[in-house]
Structure formats: C-alpha cells, structure tokens
C-alpha cells in the first residue's frame, strides 16, 4: 500500500519525460556554425519562425527587451498593443512628440514581428509628424526618424523586403521629391543627423564619399539590396509588381542625374550619370519578368516577339501557297454591296455610316490562322496547327511586353536618358540654369535673355535628334516652364515673344490655355 504513492509519482515523472520529448523536438532552436552557416534548421517551431521571417529563429538574436515586454504583458499583448496605438494617436493630437517617440518604441517591442506596424508608424513619422514642424531642419529630422524606425524593423524582421523598400523610398523619393528637396538634399550630405538617429551598422552610416552621399544614390543602393533578396528567393517579392519593383533602382539613378542638374552640376559628372542611367535602363530591359502564364519575358525582346510571330504566320501561309488568297477572295465575295462600296471609297471622304461599314468589311476580310489551318490538307494540318499556336504565343508575349513597356513608361525613359546625355542637352540645361541664376540672383535681364535663347537653340538640336520628346508630356511640361520663365524676362524688358519662336511646337503642343499663367522661376539652388 505504501508503495502506491511512490509508483504514482514515478508514473507522473515518466509521463512528464515522455511529454517533454516532443516538446523539445518541436522547439529545438536553429544553431549557427562559426562561419555564420546554419548548423541545424532546428525544430518545427524554429522552422516556422524561419518561414514567417521572424528573425528570432536563431539563438543569440533574441531581443531581450521585446521578449520581456511580451512576457510581462502576460498574454495580453493584443490589449497592450491596442492601448499603445491609442496612446500614439493621443500624443500625436496633443503634439507631444517626446512621448510619441517613446510610445512608438514600446509599440515596436510589443508588436515587433508585424511588418504593418513598422510600415504604418514609420510612414506616420516621416510624412505626418514631420510636417507638423515649421523649421525644415526639424522636418528633415522626422523624415529620417521614420527611416530609422523602418531600419529598426529590419533588425527584428531581416529580409523583410517591404521594409527595406520603404527605407529606400524615404531616402530616395521622400527626400528627393519633397518641396524642400533642395534643403533636404543638402542636409543629406551632413553626417550629423545620421549619427544622431541611426544605430551602428546602419545602411546610412556606411563609408561614402561626399558625392556618394546623395539621397538618390543611397536610395538606389538600398533598392538594390532588396532586389538581391528577391533574386535569391523570388517568393519574397510578395505582392509587389515585379516590373515596378525592379525598375526602382534604375529610376533612382535617373532621378540622381536629373537632381544633379537641378543642383547646378553639369558637364562630365552629369553626362556620366545620364550615361549610367541609360546603360542600367538597357540592362533592366534584359531582366526576365513573369508573363501571364508564368513564362519569363524580356522587354528587350519586344521586337523579337513581333518578328517571331510574323515568321510563324509566314511559314503557315507558305505551307499551302495561294490558300490565304483563296479565303480572302471568298470573303471579299461575301461582302454586301454597301460594304464593298464603302470599302472602295476614299477613306477621307467617308460618311459616318460608310466608316462603320468599311470597318465591318475589314473585320470580315481578316483571315485568321485558324481559318487557314482548317482549310489545310490533312497531311499539313498538324504542322499548321503547331505554327498557328506558335504565332499565338508570340503575339501574346508581344502584347504582354507592350503592356510592361507602357506601364513603366520604358520608351520615354530610354529616349530621355539618351537625349540628356548628349552634349547639346547638357549645354541646354547649363544655359537655362545660368539664365535663371542671372534673372533671380543678379536681376541681369540681358544675360538671362541671352542664355535662355542660347539654351533653347540647344534644346532644338536635342528635339530634332529625338523627335519623340516633342510629344512627351513630361518633357513638354518641363520645357514649357522654362519658356514661361523666358517670357517673364521678356515681359520685364517690355518685349513680346519673338515670332517664329524656336520652340513654338512645344508651346502649341503643351500649353494649356486654361492653366496658363506666368510666374517667376523658382530660386535655383546654388552649387
């Protein structure tokens, strides 16, 4: 009898040991070897953590503060998170920035693996909190503080492409396209803000020369980092549009080249920057992008797809010479008299009804590959089907690639990079910059006018070489602004616009009379 409790205890202990075994297997941590290689992938929990990109999967990467706060909230993490979100809002309304910063830090510890929390609050700081300050130095500080918050997020969630992309966005677009971009870009070159805000090992604290410390170049570097992660593991792309995602680093290079000229840097440095942008844009066209059915397509092969389709079509027609013409003749015979008359009439003289009829007729006369295949002799039908399918495939690829080209405005940037790196464009930019300088800073109307006119002559050369730019709205708007400044100078000299103005085609194409007003040029940045 006495032994019974003892036996019971032994059984309990054994049961506990048995239960501990699967637990230990489940929760085994990942181990790292000295060289940084993963030794063992760890238990199921560890693998799941790895799968969901929770960086604490490895021993030694555990953040004690975040873990303590999670433990201290005793499973009420959700409630704690909710209270902290409300506090953030309350402090923001009350403009209590020191408490807002402190609460964000706590929030990040409570919800450190929620990418959305980092993204939302970083955006909040960079975009909403920063504008609350009137002094642009303070605004810049808070813009960067958002980036610092994102970077802290990447420490908890390494390889979180969304966060890395957002950091690059803040460095590039937020700083480079802000109203205060001239001031911001200048501040970006100073180390102090970065030393104050970023931790050791930050992307922003890497050794760079003064020229390299450009917001666009740093943005590009960070985009490339996220691109590398996606190249290593394409699944990490998530919901990003691959085309837009991979275009970002090159667009940063383009923006860098444009910003250099805005800063008054021309000639060799600007030319090299544009040249580099051109090369990178061409290289971007060689990237394989997934098409509709998962096939990998390249923008550079756009023409090739069209040619291949044509070759397949030609081969199909060549299988049974004269068959296509026969089908066409039959179709022609099948048209109604009115349709035939409408089709035969001169296109310019057609009435609306005739236009409709002619359109119908053309549609009816279209000989499809399927029609040809259907009429092929039996022995050639298999080959014909194959060729028709090939034609269809290339047509689809061609269309998809055209969609890609349009969606990222590929051709515009291509022409722009080429045009901007020509000596004429660089000279034009320099002359226009100097004209603005002469007008705004020195009130020297004569020089300003002279420089504007010389600049426009150079632009003419560029437009003649790249006529596509004339119809392009971005170039048009840019030149239209320059022309307005020129008109302003003339107005102050009490002179009218010259007849046969050298860029009249730009005015005709891009001036919107309803929005038209003349304002002075913005004060350009001194180098």
């Amino acid at each position, binding site marked *: 009898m006495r032994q019974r409790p003892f036996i019971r205890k032994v059984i309990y202990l054994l049961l506990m040991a048995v239960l501990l075994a699967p637990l230990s297997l489940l929760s085994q941590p990942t181990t790292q070897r000295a060289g940084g290689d993963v030794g063992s992938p760890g238990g199921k929990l560890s693998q799941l953590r790895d799968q969901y990109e929770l960086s604490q999967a490895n021993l030694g990467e555990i953040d004690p503060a975040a873990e303590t*706060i999670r433990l201290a909230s005793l499973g009420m993490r959700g409630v704690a998170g909710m209270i902290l979100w409300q506090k953030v809002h309350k402090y923001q309304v009350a403009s209590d*920035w020191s408490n807002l910063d402190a609460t964000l830090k706590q929030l990040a510890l409570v919800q450190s693996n929620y990418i959305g929390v980092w993204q939302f609050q970083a955006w909040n700081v960079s975009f909403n909190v920063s504008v609350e300050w009137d002094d642009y130095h303070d605004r810049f500080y808070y813009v960067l503080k958002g980036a610092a918050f994102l970077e802290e997020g990447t420490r908890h969630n390494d390889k979180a492409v969304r966060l890395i992309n957002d950091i690059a966005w803040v460095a590039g677009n937020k700083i480079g396209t802000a109203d205060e971009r001239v001031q911001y870009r200048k501040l970006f070159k100073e180390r102090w803000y970065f030393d104050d805000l970023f931790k050791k090992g930050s992307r922003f604290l890497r050794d760079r020369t003064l020229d390299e410390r450009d917001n666009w170049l740093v943005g590009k570097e960070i985009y490339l980092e996220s691109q590398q992660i996606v190249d290593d593991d394409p699944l990490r792309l998530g919901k990003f549009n691959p085309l837009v995602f991979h275009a970002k680093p090159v667009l940063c290079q383009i923006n860098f080249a444009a910003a250099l000229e805005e800063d008054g840097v021309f000639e060799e440095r600007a030319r090299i920057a544009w040249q580099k942008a051109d090369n990178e844009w061409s290289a971007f066209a060689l990237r394989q992008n997934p098409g509709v059915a998962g096939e990998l397509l390249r923008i550079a092969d756009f023409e090739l797809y069209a040619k291949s389709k044509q070759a397949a079509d030609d081969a199909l027609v060549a299988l049974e010479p004269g068959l296509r013409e026969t089908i066409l003749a039959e179709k022609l015979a099948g048209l109604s008299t009115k349709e035939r008359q409408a089709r035969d009439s001169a296109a310019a003289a057609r009435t609306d009804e005739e236009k409709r009829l002619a359109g119908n007729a053309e549609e009816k006369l279209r000989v499809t590959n399927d029609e040809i295949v259907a009429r092929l002799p039996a022995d050639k039908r298999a080959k014909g089907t194959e060729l028709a399918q090939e034609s269809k495939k290339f047509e689809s690829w061609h269309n998809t690639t055209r969609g890609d080209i349009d969606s990222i405005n590929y051709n515009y940037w291509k022409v722009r990079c080429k045009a901007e790196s020509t000596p004429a464009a660089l000279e034009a930019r320099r002359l226009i910059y100097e004209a603005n300088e002469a007008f705004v800073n020195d009130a020297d109307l004569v020089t300003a006018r002279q420089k504007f006119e010389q600049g426009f002559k150079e632009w003419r050369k560029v437009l003649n070489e790249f006529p596509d730019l004339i119809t392009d709205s971005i170039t048009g708007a840019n030149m239209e602004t320059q022309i307005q400044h020129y008109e302003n100078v003339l107005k102050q000299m009490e002179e009218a616009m010259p007849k046969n103005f050298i860029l009249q085609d730009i005015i005709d194409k891009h001036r919107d009379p309803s929005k038209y007003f003349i304002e002075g040029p913005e004060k350009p940045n001194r180098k």
Partner: protein
Amino acid sequence: MDVESKTQTFGEWFLPGTNSSGGMVPGALLEFSIWIAIVALLSLLISFIVATVKHGPARGGDMVYKFIVSALGDLIFFSPKRALALAWLAMQEAIRRKVVAVFVTFIIILLFAAWFLDSTNRNPAKLYMEFVLTATTYLVLLLGLFLSAVSLPQDIQNRTIYTIVTKPVRPTELVIGRTLGFVGIGTVLLALIGLTSYVFVIRALDHTHEVTEKDLAPIKEKEGVPAEKLATNKRHGQTNSVRGHHHEVVIDADGRGKTDTQSNHWHEINLVERAGRQQYEVGPPLGQFNARVPIYGRLRFKDRFGNESIKGTNVGDEAQDRGYIEGRTLSAAIWSFKNLSEEQFPKDLHLELSIMVFRTHKGQIDKGIATSLLLRNPVTKVASADRIFLAKEFTLEKHAIPRKLRDASGKSLDLFKDLVHEGALDIEIRCLDAAQFLGMKQTDLFLQAREASFPLNFVKGYVGIWLQMVLIIAFGVMWSTFLNGAVAMLATFSTLVGGFFVQHITELAQGKVLGGGTAESTMRMLTQQNITSDLPPGLSTTAVKLFDMVMQIPLTLISHLLPDFGQLSDVEQLARGFDINLLDQLARHSFYTLAYVAPVLFAAFVFFKLREVAR
C-alpha cells in the same frame, strides 16, 4: 488638470468666486463642507432607520444617541501616545510582511529601465522623470493598498486583535494608530525610492561629448555681420553624436566655449591638459533639470479687424486648445499680467514662449514665420518698439527684455516707469507674414522671475505621491474595518481605479461621453456601430438610454465621493520643468487629501466601533 486650474491660486480654488466666463463657483471649502454634511446626515438617518427597524423607534433612537455620546468620548479622550504605540506596532508588522520587497522591485525596474527608455529622445529629462514618478506612484499605491486593507481583517481572523482591544485602547486610537503606522512605513519607503529615483535620473542622463581640433573651423561668415567685424579668433564646429544628438560649439581664443541647446541641455567646454597634450573637455549636461517659476498672464485675442475676442481663429487643429492669429492683419494675441514688481525683475524681464505655426501657403520654405512682440502699458497705451524674431515651435524660447527700451519712434522708455502700470502689463504678439497663422494658448507665454531649486521641486513632486498614498491607506483602513481581507482589498482597489478615472465617471454621470453610457456602449459594441452614429429608434434603444439615464444618479454620487488621484499628481509639471507652487498647489493638495482622509477615518472609526470586537 487643465490650464485654467494650473494657473489658479489657492484662494481662487478654496473660496467662492467667479470663473473666467463670469459664472459663480462655490469654491472647494464650501463644496467639501456640503458633501461631508450630506454624507454625515445620511449616515445618521440610515443608522436611526436600521436601529428603529430592529428595536423600535424609542430604543433605536436611544441607541443612536448613546453611540454618538460614546463616539464623542472616544474622540475627546483620544490619546496620541497610545496611537503612536499602535503606529509603531503597525510599522513592525509591515516590516515583518517584508514591505522592503517593494523597494527591491523598484530597484529591479530601474536596472532594466534602460531597455525600454529611449535615451535618444529629444526631451529625455521629461521622459525619464515621468517614468520614475509614474512607476513610483503605482508601486507605492499598491503597497498602501496591500498593507492597509489586509492587516486589520487578518488580526481579527487570527484573533490577535483581542490582545489589543482587551487593553484600554479606544477604537479611534486603533484606527489612527494603524493609519499612522502604515503611512510611516510608506513614507520611509517612498523617501528611499525618491532618493534612488533622483540619483537614477541624474546619472542616467549624465553624458558628455567629444570635440577635437579637427572638428573646429574658424568662423568666417555670419548672416548680417560683415567679415571684417567678426572675431576671427573664434572657432566653431560640432561635437560627436551621443544619445541621439550632437551640439554646435563655439570656442574662444582661450579654448573656452559652450555648446548650443539640444535635447533641452547644453555643455561647457574647456581646454585642459592631459598627459602633456591639450584637449577639449566637454562638461556635464547643464540646464536639463529646471524648476521654472512662471508668472502667467490672461490671454485674449484680437481678430483680423482688431476686435477683441476670447478665442483666436480656428485653423482646424484637432487638439483645439490654441487660438490662432492671422499674419499682417490687426489680429493679435495679448497677455495681460498683474502684480509685477521691480523687485521680481531687477535686471531684465525674462520671458519664455512657444508658438505654433500654421501656414496656408508654402511661403519661403527655408525661413521661419516672422513674429513681433511688444510691451504695452494697459492704461496709457504707451508701447515699446516691435521685437522681431522667427517663431519656433514645440520649444520654450527665452527672451530677456531689457529695462531700458525704445518706442517705435526711437524715444527711450523705462520698463517699469513707462510700461508697467500699477503692476499691470500687456504683452502683444503679432504675425508679420501675410496669410500665415500663429497659434497660442494661455500657458504658451509666461514671465520667469526666478528659477526654483530642482531637488526641492523633485521632493514636492514626491509629496503629491505621498498624499495619494495617505489617501489610499485611509481608504484601505476604512474598508478593512468591516470587510474581510480579500473583499477589503478589492474595495480599496476599486476606489483606486475609480479614483484614477473620476473625470471619466463624471463625464459618464453627466452623459457627456461620446457613444453613451455603459448599456448604450455595450449595445454599440455588440451591434458593431461606431460611437458617433445615431442608434436606430426602437424599444431597445429607448431601453438602453433609459437605463443609462437611471445609472447617472449613482454615478453622480460616486463621482462626488471618489477622490480624484489625478488632482494630487504633479508628475507632468515636474517633468516639464516647472516649479510646483507650495501654496497654490501643495496646500491645495493637502487640503484635498485632508478633506477625504478625515471623514474616511471617522467612518472607519464608526464602522470599527460598531463591530463586536471593538466593544
């Protein structure tokens, strides 16, 4: 606590008077007296009814009378000596209960505080002080709760109480003795925690920077100063970055200098010789712990046509606590000060202000908004020339206005002879940029006659916490006289939680809370309706609204009976670097606490006397 009550004097708060909008206010004295009288009369009435129901009106009345006489006896023949002896016993008991664990807990919290506190914060002193003061408040209140609510019921349960009540001890002595004992031990712990906190805050924020010769360059240009007039032997540069900030420094030819103000502090720099080499030594942070003694004026506005108005323009700011003035119009913000004297400002008139900016257009992006400030005699209307500066937000900018001034025409003026009239002075702010706005509230501008001692202010902040502790101990003792341990603790805890949310309960009682009372908000949650939409008309809506209306009666009673712990807390003021006024604030807090503690202890005595053990 709102701005209005912060700038109130003790007299204004204590005695009947009028508020800013001209309405009558009864004052704290009258209000407390009325409520105490109501509660006392109600208690008597209830006692009489209970006794009557049990024993008939004649005997019941007699019992109540005898009880009152005996209670009066207990009060009159109260022996402080015996009470102190009992207090000592309570302290010993508390020590046996290992209250020191609270102190140990606090030390552990401080040890790991650095993990959670952002040392790179732009206002670290405020953050750190708020943290230690809040942590102290919670810990000490919980300590008071556990000590006071558990002790007496446990004595009764263990029957150790008989060893005391069989001795010639009056219930008053027992109640007051216990309370004093717990307050005593709490005070010792609070003092220890306070001292540790002070050392923690000072040490945690102590830091220095480095400046080396290569960080410095001669000053070559300065806006508005011709190069030949600049002292060329001065050099400027930056320190290294420590704790999320760096400083701009200016160093004289003799190697001495100072930094600019960042994160609310600055440093002094000296050239020293170490190991045969000369190097710059940056001193400890200065000016981050303040105890400003502000003199507030009453703020009024002028609209764009120059008409007087109480509120400024509303620019759609969500907080809605500031009024705005429009640039380059007749719009102005005017602070009227009273009782200023030459003795307060023997040299300059020290003024601090913080202004919000609201731009309706970009304007010049790299320039601040031009602001003008002038001093005006409220009677003779003589005014000083405009003092023009750029508005700076979210920081207190200091201005020293000299005694000798000039008016707009260049005529010299004396501050106290020409501009201050019998202690009254108007300070006027205008915005000089067209279509831009400047925003301000009453406390955004104040005069600073002197700087009080920060350590003393720290102590004053702890007095506020101490008063809260006394209050919770009194409540704990009261509940424990007639409830058993766990229930007494729960009751005290409810008092504490209720006390932190008095404002909210008051708003609930007045039906001012968005989304309705308890029933209505529950319904909204269940039907997933937001707090602003109207509920669909119908029986259920009417029922919940009616329920909430009925609930407003007990809520009103509770809101008047519960102590407002927030009233006693000066944490924010201390953390923001403002002196806690001894008379206006601490005296008010003390009176407020006393007004609760006295009746609560009296009730404790009555309850205890009614219990069998005490007879």
